[in-house]
């Protein structure tokens, strides 16, 4: 195929989905344009930058549908190879880590662990037991020596995480080098076969709309769910893997990064408010963190992030395909868990549509 006959694909939205799609599709013989309303360079806007990058199908299953779990398993299969390719192409390690995750609860909340197991069993049957290893204070101390004062926990061996602050810039550098045309500060409107920037309408063979909340009004029931995250730096406490604290009221995860920082989050508030983190939320996150190990008291809060996760009313990923237009949205709190599986589905839909064009 010569360049004149290459099919033209527009991707609207330069978040996680947009970048992954641009990267995957530019490896085919396609003419790709990526539109982004803001900046593509870090710090990136949108939920993908605020997130902690966990890929944890089991932990998420207790408050989501089995379909999310199944897509998550698919993503767990895809991430290692994608991370390897990205490292090769960008020269940057995206820090994909499959070290499992640990769930703990304080003594008086120990029924939370039981409840978690029960819910997993309810959704997965007996196979849940094989994927979850109960921990006592000894095994817990071996796995996560920095946790303080916990008598029991659960180890979810299969779970993983990725450093999104490496991944997103890494993807961008690969896109720069590849044959992708990048158009920043371009707020667009998406229609079947067309992208409009301001009043200019450009024609494409296929338009992929993955603008997240930018697509509000075009997708029924799309809403934002506010999330607040803090980043702390501690020399004393070093976690080995993502840790979740189960508590009847507060939920906390702590995800350690290679640079000694720990991302802690995340609140979940039914609001599209993007204003800075509230005092209440920062207290809840801090005191939950402190309860993992009192030495966290001397950690430094180096950053706070607030963003809204795009979600549909059933909190399930949204993929809609019609001739010349594919809309992907609503990854909610499961961006890194779902993205590879969802991107693969979209890739095959693009291929189908373009076959019909050519």
């Amino acid at each position, binding site marked *: 195929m010569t360049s004149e006959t290459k099919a033209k694909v527009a991707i609207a939205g330069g978040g996680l989905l947009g970048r992954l799609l641009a990267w995957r599709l530019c490896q085919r013989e396609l003419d790709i344009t990526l539109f982004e309303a803001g900046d593509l360079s870090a710090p990136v806007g949108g939920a993908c930058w605020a997130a902690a990058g966990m890929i944890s199908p089991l932990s998420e299953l207790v*408050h989501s*549908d089995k379909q999310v779990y199944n897509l998550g398993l698919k993503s767990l299969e895809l991430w290692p190879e994608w991370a390897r390719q990205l490292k090769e192409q960008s020269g940057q390690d995206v820090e994909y880590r499959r070290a499992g995750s640990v769930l703990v609860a304080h003594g008086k909340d120990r029924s939370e662990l039981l409840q978690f197991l029960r819910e997993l069993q309810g959704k997965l049957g007996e196979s849940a037991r094989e994927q979850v290893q109960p921990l006592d204070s000894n095994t817990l101390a071996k796995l996560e020596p920095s946790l303080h004062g916990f008598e029991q926990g659960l180890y979810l061996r299969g779970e993983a995480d990725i450093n999104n602050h490496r991944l997103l810039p890494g993807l961008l550098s690969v896109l720069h080098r590849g044959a992708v045309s990048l158009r920043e500060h371009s707020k667009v409107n998406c229609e079947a076969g067309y992208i409009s920037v301001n009043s200019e309408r450009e024609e494409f063979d296929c338009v992929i709309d993955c603008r997240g909340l930018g697509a509000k009004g075009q997708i029924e029931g799309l809403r934002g769910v506010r999330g607040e995250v803090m980043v702390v730096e501690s020399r004393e406490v070093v976690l080995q893997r993502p840790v979740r604290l189960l508590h*009847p009221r507060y939920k906390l995860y702590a995800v350690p990064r290679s640079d000694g920082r720990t991302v802690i989050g995340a*609140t979940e*508030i*039914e609001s599209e*408010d993007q204003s800075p983190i509230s005092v209440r939320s920062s207290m809840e996150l801090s005191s939950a963190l402190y309860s993992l190990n009192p030495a966290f008291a001397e950690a430094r809060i180096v950053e706070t992030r607030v963003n809204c996760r795009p979600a549909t009313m*059933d909190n399930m990923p949204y993929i809609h395909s019609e001739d010349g237009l594919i809309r992907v949205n609503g990854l909610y709190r499961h961006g890194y868990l779902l993205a590879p599986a969802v991107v693969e589905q979209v890739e095959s839909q693009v291929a189908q549509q373009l076959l019909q064009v050519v």
Partner: protein
Amino acid sequence: MSDLLTLYGKAFNSRLLVGTALYPSPAIMRESVQASASEIITLSLRRQNPAQQQDNRFWDYIRESGCQLLPNTAGCKSPREAVELAKMSQEIFQTDWLKLEVIGDDYNLQPDPFGLVEAARELIQLGFKVLPYCTDDLVLCRKLLDVGCEVLMPWGAPIGTGQGLLNKYNLQTLRERLSDVPLIIDAGIGAPSQAAEALEMGFDAVLLNTAIAKAQDPVLMANAFKLAVESGRAAFNAGLMLRRQTASPSTPTLDMPFWQQAESILQD
């Protein structure tokens, strides 16, 4: 036979009030509310930024249910805080109905009786229809009635514990002594059988959230609670039999003298 629940002059068919928090998704929340047949739903303004409320899809979604909205003051620890939040809720949800919560203890979310009475007095003067979440203390309940509450919502057990009706003696006392006041058991209900029990005891309704929202199948559980509440109410209306110490066969055994019947029971 019509057996309506009347609260502040408004009549309802359903005696089950449900919350809107903690569901896996808004869609499941709405389906559960429908399955519960509730006509009154609570919701919380807490943690929202009032400056940014022009466009909240989630609340629109709740409003579309057509239910009587009952905003709450969850998490408020002082009367001042509760009154301010109540005013904000009134503006945003366009209703003067209010589930008043003033929390006195952070860990078990126990109501602060003193702050509750103070806040209730002020809110009633402001024209609110106050449904206070209170403990099962008779004197507290009286004081709440004195300041103008027409409905009371004593707890069964602390919020989210699912322990059921912990102090039946107190609850029974409330029911007997405040026989004309609509009493709704709020909080602590974990199982449909506990909801049924509350209605059997003569309570007018129950309010719950966690037991439905955190069930593995919230929609199915909502239906279970609907049936339990209907069943408990029907049982109350029908008049429960009294408990007896000795068995009484529904068909007398004529061939056995009554003193021997008693003996054979004792030997069992």
